[in-house]
């Protein structure tokens, strides 16, 4: 059995205009020590998925259905008290903006010691020693000094290292990293990602990496999910998805990456923008933007408009698209033409 099993997770937000379904039928698994990437546009439900794993969705959001099983525990129906023992202790989380994640009025040491003491019965001295050890692991220069410094005295990269140290503090089984490098500049991004990867491998920690950076996902993760409008639309081994994306949306995302283009050449893009979750189109949510349409009249295929696509196995991947078989047939024909 996998370490973390999410099945048919359904998250809704009760708003005045009615319920908005932020996640629908999201299912995935994570093995011990495995690294999983979740990609998608802003608003696709990536962060909601992360927070719902810890049952921490703020009001007015709530988990309407599905189950989250972690190491035999059903997180969805656990009491608040029992959940607190999982949070931070066995599943920890790294946030996007290191400037905001640390409490500005507490020193680094105080924040780390507090986290340790919330979960273990140890003295402040022992906690400080563990904190120091973790700071050394994230390769912070002069870690002892850092313990007594306040967040504003540190640079962004250094703060993100501290946040990683805090995430590792209690030797968790899973770290959820919600766009951990978005707020950092490119050179620091690479350093932080390499550090995170190294520490996860070293401690055999599972990593759920939420990002919209396909480059990072392809380098760090073993498997990935592509999300669109609250649904998983494609999942499978990262390498296969990056090399041979099946869903038109994933294809669009990968085409949109800047290639070494000649000057003046426009970058590819997916036309339109993601629909509002409260007003999703019928059938496949992606069909208004999909390039795979009837060539004869420029209309979307009837199946795409009428029915929500089921998952189809395609090699090691699972794709939610009506047209997978057809697209593959098309491609085969094209290849034959060329040869």
């Amino acid at each position: 059995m996998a370490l973390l099993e999410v099945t048919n997770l359904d998250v809704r937000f009760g708003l005045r205009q009615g319920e908005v379904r932020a996640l629908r039928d999201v299912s995935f698994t994570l093995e011990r020590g495995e690294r999983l990437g979740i990609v998608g546009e802003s608003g696709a439900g990536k962060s909601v998925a992360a927070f719902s794993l810890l049952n921490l969705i703020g009001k007015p959001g709530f988990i309407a259905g599905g189950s989250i099983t972690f190491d035999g525990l059903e997180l969805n129906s656990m009491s608040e008290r029992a959940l607190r023992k999982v949070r931070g202790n066995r599943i920890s989380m790294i946030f996007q903006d290191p400037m905001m994640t640390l409490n500005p009025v507490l020193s680094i040491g105080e924040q780390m010691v507090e986290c340790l003491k919330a979960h273990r019965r140890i003295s402040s001295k022992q906690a400080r020693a563990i904190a120091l050890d973790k700071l050394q692991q994230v390769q912070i220069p002069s870690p002892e000094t850092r313990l007594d410094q306040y967040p504003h005295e540190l640079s962004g990269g250094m703060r993100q290292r501290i946040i990683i140290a805090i995430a590792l503090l209690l030797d968790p089984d899973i770290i959820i990293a919600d766009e951990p490098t978005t707020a950092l500049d490119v050179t620091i991004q690479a350093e932080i990602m390499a550090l995170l990867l190294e520490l996860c491998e070293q401690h055999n920690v599972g990593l759920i990496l939420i990002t919209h950076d396909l480059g990072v996902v392809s380098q760090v993760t073993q498997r990935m999910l592509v999300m669109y409008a609250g649904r998983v639309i494609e999942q499978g081994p990262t390498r296969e998805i990056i090399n041979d994306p099946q869903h038109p949306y994933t294809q669009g995302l990968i085409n949109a990456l800047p290639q070494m283009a000649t000057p003046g050449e426009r970058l590819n893009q997916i036309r339109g923008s993601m629909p509002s979750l409260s007003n999703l189109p019928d059938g496949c949510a992606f069909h208004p933007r999909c390039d795979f349409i009837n060539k004869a009249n420029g209309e979307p295929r009837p199946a795409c408009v009428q029915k929500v696509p089921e998952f189809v196995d395609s090699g090691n991947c699972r794709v939610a698209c009506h047209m997978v078989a057809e697209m593959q047939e098309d491609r085969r024909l094209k290849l034959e033409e060329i040869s």
Partner: protein
Amino acid sequence: MTIPTVTQSSSQTTRPRIPSRWERLRDSYLWYSFKRDHTAQLCLAIFIGLVIVAFASPLLAPTDPYDLRQIDIMASELPPFWIDGADERFILGTDAQGRDLLSIILYGTRVSLLIGFGAVILQALLGVTFGLMAGYLGGRVDALLMRLADIQLSFSTLMVAIVVGAVVKATMGGAFYSEYAVIMLILIIGLAEWPQYARTVRASVLAEKNKEYVDAARVMGLRSKRIMFRHVLPNTLSPIFVISTVQIANAIISEAALSFLGLGMPETHPSLGSLIKSGFDYIQSGSWWITLIPGAVLVILVLSINLLGDWLRDVMNPRLYKG
């Protein structure tokens, strides 16, 4: 043209010394601003001076005004030293009962400050706790607590004092009320004014609650109580400090007003307010000092606290920064 020399300081691995609390204060903007603001310095000096003098009154005062044996009714209504007919034993003159005005002002300032601080501490305890709960927990708790605050604010302090005073006097007797008047006044002013704190704290908490460090603390698995008091509260301290100065001044004024109306401290243990009241009856007969001197002390005390509060607000609110 000079070529900058490369210093080798980076190769030294001595770790920087952690500044002590005093050094942190000395380097802070608070201290910097204080050094440049003469009004604040003067006000703090006056305020601290008054506090020290008031609380050291048993040592400093020439006589003990609570000791009836030291009072000579024949020496009543003597004027202060710069007026003819003054007695050199009584620098600021005497009141209608023949008590030394200087001594009784010192003792009275102590009572006023005691009530002011006590009431503000009570207000702050209630207000901060309720404000934090309302802001952080939200929903029904918020609605309930804030409606309670609205109800509380719709009673004036005077009304609360009259009702509480009447009830206590009726049930326990006047002697009991006089004996515990300080505690009674702290309770009355404290209970009447907590919504000021609750509202300020709630507003700050609502702003802080949505910051990521609160999410991070929840993800760490900390309890709500701990997040509220250890993570959110310290971030809302600056408005609490600012409002505290205003509230201390307000509490002292409220106490004076209540005493002036005869709802506060009894004549035997007068505060500044009851001194003003007791002298008020003699103003027409020319003994103005019994009212005016305690009045001046009250004004100076409240004014210096208020000016300190103004300065603190300017320092702690960067948006009001005035170059």
